[in-house]
């Protein structure tokens, strides 16, 4: 079966270490899915490309066609790899903007592998203190491993900042296997289609009855 994984990168620069990490995580998820006997299709959404539309959507209350299509790519995927730069101890504003314009409940039940980049290793717990609670609020299912990469992680081919932590590549693979296991075990999410925002959830006679 073919599984569609949305990859969201909140990187601001080009080239971007956030995008670099997102790509490594996405490839690892694809690999892990193939090992589980599943085909994988990756759809990358670079938030930088939608920065102005995201701001406009916050101000006007509706998304442009281009942004709507990007948001649908995310909300209809079978799994999500989400990577943000860490600024001031938390996810970047652009990353949060994208979350804020989603329909309520749009990511409910979505398996998520989180990642983050930062200039220093001292930001590493931002994933646990800021990003994971955000995804809990969205009622997604985050996998236990969250992948954090400080600038120095990219510099050390063999390992990480100190000798006693699991090297970046190994953390990516572990997170990817966890996500693949969750995705492979579920019915395809896209089959149900996106939620119909115009669906009436109650009978009007019941509403009238109070």
């Amino acid at each position, binding site marked *: 079966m073919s599984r569609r994984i949305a990859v969201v990168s909140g990187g601001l620069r080009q080239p971007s270490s956030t995008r670099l990490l997102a790509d490594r995580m996405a490839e690892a998820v694809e690999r892990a899915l193939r090992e589980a006997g599943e085909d994988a299709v990756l759809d990358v959404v670079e938030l930088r490309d939608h920065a102005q539309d995201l*701001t406009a959507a916050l101000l*006007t209350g509706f998304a442009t*066609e281009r942004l709507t299509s990007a948001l649908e790519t995310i909300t209809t995927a079978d799994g999500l790899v989400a990577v943000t730069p860490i600024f001031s101890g938390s996810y970047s504003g652009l990353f949060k903007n994208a979350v804020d314009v989603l329909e309520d409940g749009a990511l409910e039940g979505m398996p998520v592998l989180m990642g983050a980049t930062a200039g220093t290793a001292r930001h590493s717990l931002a994933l646990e203190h800021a990003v994971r609670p955000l995804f809990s609020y969205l009622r997604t299912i985050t996998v236990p491993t969250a992948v954090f990469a400080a600038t120095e992680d990219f510099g050390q081919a063999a390992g990480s900042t100190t000798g006693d932590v699991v090297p970046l590549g190994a953390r990516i693979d572990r997170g990817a296997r966890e996500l693949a296991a969750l995705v492979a075990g579920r019915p395809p999410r896209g089959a149900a289609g996106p939620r119909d925002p115009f669906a009436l959830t109650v009978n009007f006679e019941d509403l009238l009855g109070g």
Partner: protein
Amino acid sequence: MQFGIFSVSDITTDPTTGRTPGEGERLKAVLAIAAKAEEVGLDVFALGEHHNPPFFSSSPTTTLAYVAARTERLLLSTATTLITTNDPVKIAEDYAMLQHLADGRVDLMMGRGNTGPVYPWFGQDIRNGIPLAVENYALLHRLWREDVVDWQGRFRTPLQSFTSTPRPLDGVPPFVWHGSIRSPEIAEQAAYYGDGFFHNNIFWPISHTQQMVALYRRRFEHYGHGAADRAIVGLGGQVFMRRNSQDAKREFRPYFDNAPVYGHGPSMEDFTEQTPLTVGSPQEVIDRYAAMRDHVGDYQRQLFLIDHAGLPLGTVLDQLEILGGEVVPVLRKELAVGRPAHVPDAPTHAARVAAAGGGRDATVHGAGDDVTGASPEPAGAGDPRVTR
């Protein structure tokens, strides 16, 4: 097809001069705008209701009564009346009153409002927004149709043997539109009663408006009021015109760029592409709005927003000249072409009275009181009712 204007009653600084009009000035400007709307041949003037700055229109019935006295033909409406925080008893009375004074030139648009804090100001809880809209309207609907109402609900004190006065003119209540941008419950409510549905349209992609109208039409048919294309639909619109398209863009841009609702966000070009806002020549406006029915079907009412974002009165009056002189006459013709005969016209009091089999004096005379012991029936009106 009815054409008109609707005002959100904002007080906004003119970004080109830095001048901010006062409340009294804007209020008087709205009266001039309404009078001009009639003069240039428009059909409808609608005014919103707000209870916080920077808006001035907290009491639409007062304003509309004044407009009614100074116009002959113009249909007066609201845009919108807060069905959530106004007491339905007071709405029933206020608008029946206005309906009499305006000789029937009145209808209403119900809405829930867009300001959360307004709920506690009027003793309500925003979490009950939809249930309030449903219960209050159900009561209002009865108060206009039943002379004596016994009622009990969740949100206000019960009514026993209550008669809302004055009774609707000719025994026919004002027509009601339900305005909603994105709540399917409200489209459903309009469909349930066979009332009109109005989509404000102006800040939304037409695809979105189209979905809401389609839902309302489908449910209108479901509730047995007639085929979906007989449902009563109104749309908002937003335009700024000059003879030359480039002049219109140059003149309107500072107002767009600084408008409270979309300023400092999307570019005017992006916004005009994505929403019904049309800034250009009269012909561009005609082309854009003649095409609206391709999206929502043949509809009954088109209202334009033209007096917001700090535009000075003189400019607004110019816009009305262009709208009434060049745009609406052509749109009337174009939208009449190919319009199926069974698609109803926009409702008017006269048409609704005729449909009810003629008007009747609906006055309810009281059963006497403890002071006079007599009914207020005029002398010589036949058998005086003996009550006790």
